[in-house]
């Protein structure tokens, strides 16, 4: 009797609807605890003044008397929008040149073009200053070359921020558009040509619109990233006000209410942009009818178009690699030999040697690797389950869950960090009654939260391509769900998951913005170490450290591509 009952229960447990909820539960729990709750806490903080509900902070924010916040808001928004356009302007053509034209070294340049992603933000900006600042290498060279009185240009203020943003963020456009271009059905362009359209019309009316999903994804990423951008405005723009900095300053001035308010407003803007983009993309259909039918490189090529474009592309990549080269150069300049001089004169490995002598040098490296590994392992597991439930199971409230998953992307790192501090500086059930702030675990958790969307999205892409009938076939052959999942689903979607995980890992290793707000003694990551070197004016050592970091990240990318066939370019 009991046996029968148990068996009944087990069968019931295995029915699809129940099983969906079994899978859903942990996913919802994680999203609720670590995404929704912190954001909610921040919202509460912003309206809960001295124990009562009040919109005082919002009134202050929008107070027409003191325009600081509004100015910051406006600056953030317009800089972000301009960043989107500038990044697109660089990324889209490069993606086309490197994916449409065949020339010697194409593969090298195509991968080199994603190098800005391995440039740590803080030192990245520094090296920009050394290149294009008023007394930068490039600036001075041009000045000397043409015997100019005044430097021809200088990197500062808004233009400086935009330049840095365009430089670091075009990669998003480059990556998304690259994979879209590769997936584009050439028959569509041929059809347009056949109907009498010239190449420009084909590009404008057919190719570009078909890239919309890619462009939307990249725009979102760039917009979010520049809303959250910290290092560039922090280092370049003197007193220039942007929202992410305002939050930081409010916070370190101890004005927590205001910081929360600013965070909420930033979140609202980001989420609005997310929804706007979703709406825009949803208006039309971009699904290619048939995947991969007759994909072949188009044959007829005008060499007068091809070679100048290729030359531009290659030249572009060389320029894009200049900051890396500068960092390397800086790392070779011994302390104190390049202060007022126009060009460095002495070179040695002194900085590297000094670093090596430091007994604690590997500690941040170890921390970064460990935390990135822990966080990414979490992302990996969570990503698989969340994505499986979202793509393959049907349940009510799916849209809401989808937005929750995307939320950490819609929120700048500053805000995520802020949310976490507010949520977890007291014991909560979500942290099993512990205070997380000030402990080792807060940073891996922050990385984890930050990268949820990245992994879930790339897994989604893989899962959406996975035919439902594979799962059914396995079950029809007698496999239980767990077996099916382990033996069939997982291996098939692995490349997609790995690509996302890899990108998450790489970003986690170099993460700075939330690290700076959350790190502790035990978990000081590389980026913070670099910042501290900078604070001690050890520019050369900071550069040497950054070179280590670049090599580390590039190494990880290379190994995973070489040995596991994972291509980070294909993630988004």
């Amino acid at each position, binding site marked *: 009797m009991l046996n029968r009952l148990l068996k009944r229960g087990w069968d019931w447990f295995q029915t699809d609807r129940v099983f969906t909820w079994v899978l859903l539960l942990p996913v919802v729990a994680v999203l609720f605890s670590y995404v929704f709750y912190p954001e909610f806490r921040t919202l509460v903080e912003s309206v809960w003044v001295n124990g009562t509900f009040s919109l005082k902070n919002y009134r202050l924010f929008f107070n027409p008397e003191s325009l600081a916040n509004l100015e910051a808001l406006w600056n953030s928004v317009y800089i972000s929008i301009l960043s989107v356009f500038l990044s697109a302007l660089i990324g889209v053509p490069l993606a086309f040149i490197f994916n449409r034209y065949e020339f010697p070294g194409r593969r090298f340049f195509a991968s080199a073009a994603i190098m800005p992603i391995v440039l740590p933000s803080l030192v990245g900006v520094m090296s920009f200053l050394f290149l294009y600042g008023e007394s930068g290498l490039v600036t001075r060279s041009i000045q000397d070359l043409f015997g100019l009185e005044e430097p021809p240009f200088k990197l500062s203020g808004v233009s400086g921020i935009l330049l840095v943003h365009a430089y670091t963020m075009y990669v998003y456009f480059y990556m998304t558009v690259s994979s879209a271009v590769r997936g584009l059905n050439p028959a569509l362009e041929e059809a347009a040509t056949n109907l009498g359209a010239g190449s420009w019309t084909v590009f404008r009316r057919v190719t570009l619109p078909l890239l919309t999903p890619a462009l939307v994804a990249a725009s979102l990423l760039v917009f979010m990233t520049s809303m959250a951008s910290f290092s560039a405005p922090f280092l370049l723009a003197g007193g220039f006000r942007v929202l992410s900095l305002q939050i930081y300053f409010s916070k370190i001035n101890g004005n927590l209410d205001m910081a929360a308010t600013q965070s909420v407003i930033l979140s609202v803007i980001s989420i609005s942009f997310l929804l706007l983009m979703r709406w825009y993309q949803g208006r039309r259909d971009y699904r290619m009818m048939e995947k991969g039918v007759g994909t072949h490189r188009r044959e007829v090529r005008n060499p007068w178009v091809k070679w100048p474009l290729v030359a531009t592309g290659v030249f572009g990549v060389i320029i894009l690699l200049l900051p890396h080269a500068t960092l390397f150069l800086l790392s070779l300049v011994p302390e104190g030999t390049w202060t007022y001089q126009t060009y460095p004169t002495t070179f040695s490995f002194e900085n590297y040697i000094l670093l090596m002598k430091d007994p604690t040098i590997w500690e941040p490296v170890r921390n970064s690797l460990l935390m990135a590994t822990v966080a990414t392992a979490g992302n990996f597991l969570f990503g698989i389950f969340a994505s499986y439930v979202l793509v393959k199971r049907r349940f009510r409230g799916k849209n809401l869950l989808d937005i929750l998953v995307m939320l950490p992307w819609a929120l700048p790192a500053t805000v995520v960090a802020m949310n976490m501090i507010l949520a977890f500086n007291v014991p909560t059930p979500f942290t099993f009654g512990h205070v997380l702030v000030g402990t080792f675990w807060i940073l891996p958790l922050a990385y984890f939260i930050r990268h949820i969307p990245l992994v879930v999205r790339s897994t989604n892409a893989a899962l959406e391509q996975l035919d439902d009938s594979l799962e*059914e076939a396995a079950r029809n*052959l007698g496999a239980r769900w767990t077996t099916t999942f382990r033996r069939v689903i997982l291996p098939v979607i692995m490349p997609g998951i790995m690509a996302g995980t890899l990108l998450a890992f790489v970003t986690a290793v170099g993460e700075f913005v939330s690290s700076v707000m959350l790190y502790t003694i035990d978990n000081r990551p590389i980026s913070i170490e670099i910042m501290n070197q900078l604070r001690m004016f050890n520019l050369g050592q900071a550069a040497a450290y950054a070179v280590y970091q670049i090599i580390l990240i590039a190494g990880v990318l290379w190994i995973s591509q070489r040995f596991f066939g994972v291509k980070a370019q294909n993630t988004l």
Partner: protein
Amino acid sequence: MSRVRLQNVSKTFGTTTAVKELNLTIREGEFFTFLGPSGCGKTTTLRMIAGFYYPAEGRIWFDNRDVTEVPPQKRNTGMVFQNYALFPHMTVHENVAFGLEVRKISKKEIRERVKKALEQVRLAGYSDRRIAQLSGGQQQRVALARSLVIRPGILLLDEPLSNLDARLRDEMRSEILSLQRSLGITTIYVTHDQTEALSMSDRIAVFNQGVCQQVGTPEEVYNAPRNAFVASFVGETNLFPATVAQVSGETVTVQSKDHTFRIRHKQEESGFSVEPGNRLFLTIRPEGVDLVPEAGENTLSAKMELVQFMGTSFHCAARLEDGTPLKAMFVNRPDLMGRLREGDRVIFRFPEDRLRLIPGGDDRA
């Protein structure tokens, strides 16, 4: 090798009824086909048998076991999916072995059985190939081997040939058939292609809008359709509304528009009797129509509108004087060549043993 019985099975999705009060028995070892237009509920029925859907009402029996609520992995059916659903990350061998590994069968036995299964589908040398390296027909055979190797009680095939080109489709039909015959496994085959259904099946169930219209052997379904839908869906046909004028023994005289036709009608064959005044349908298949030099009994004059050369035969579309279209088919013979010309006026004869009566003339025009 089980008998499958569907007992009053219904299935609804939201407001649409995909399958309605279906009663069917599929005999042991039979090659049984579900035939019907798109959306008529074939796949839904098959998936209920496989266990991917649970019926809203009714019960499903395998032999004497009620499997209505048994999860798919415990039904021991072998399913070949329309798109084959081969595991792309496994080799041919691994694909075929999967179902056995899941059953915790010894390594050695697995190796043997996979080998044998691959031989059966004539893919002996392919065991280490990756799926992507196979042609469509080969993939189809792997899918077949994969479901056969687990020695399923029932083999389920969901339009397995619809993705293949004409030539390959012909080949695969014979292969599936000969394999099924030699193994004697109960097989349910889903298709919307009537040629496929007719040429392969022991029995066919013709579906329309979730309802089973007729169950019978190919010849029964083709030559003695139960109703107008079956007549027009299974093969091309000419269908004229008609009224019974006179009944004398097996010979019936009917009136269709201006024309009078004599027909041989056996009640025991068609399952219904006729009486003068009955409104019903008169049908004749295109290949039943004769071309004669001059008018006589059961003849009609028509204008040839389109002659399509199909290789083995000529397909003709003609139009009677009152504007009714008529299809006729003639086997390719050198002497016909000159006689079938578009625009010509010709005389057709409907031989009385080729004409059929179908009930239901009241409902349909």
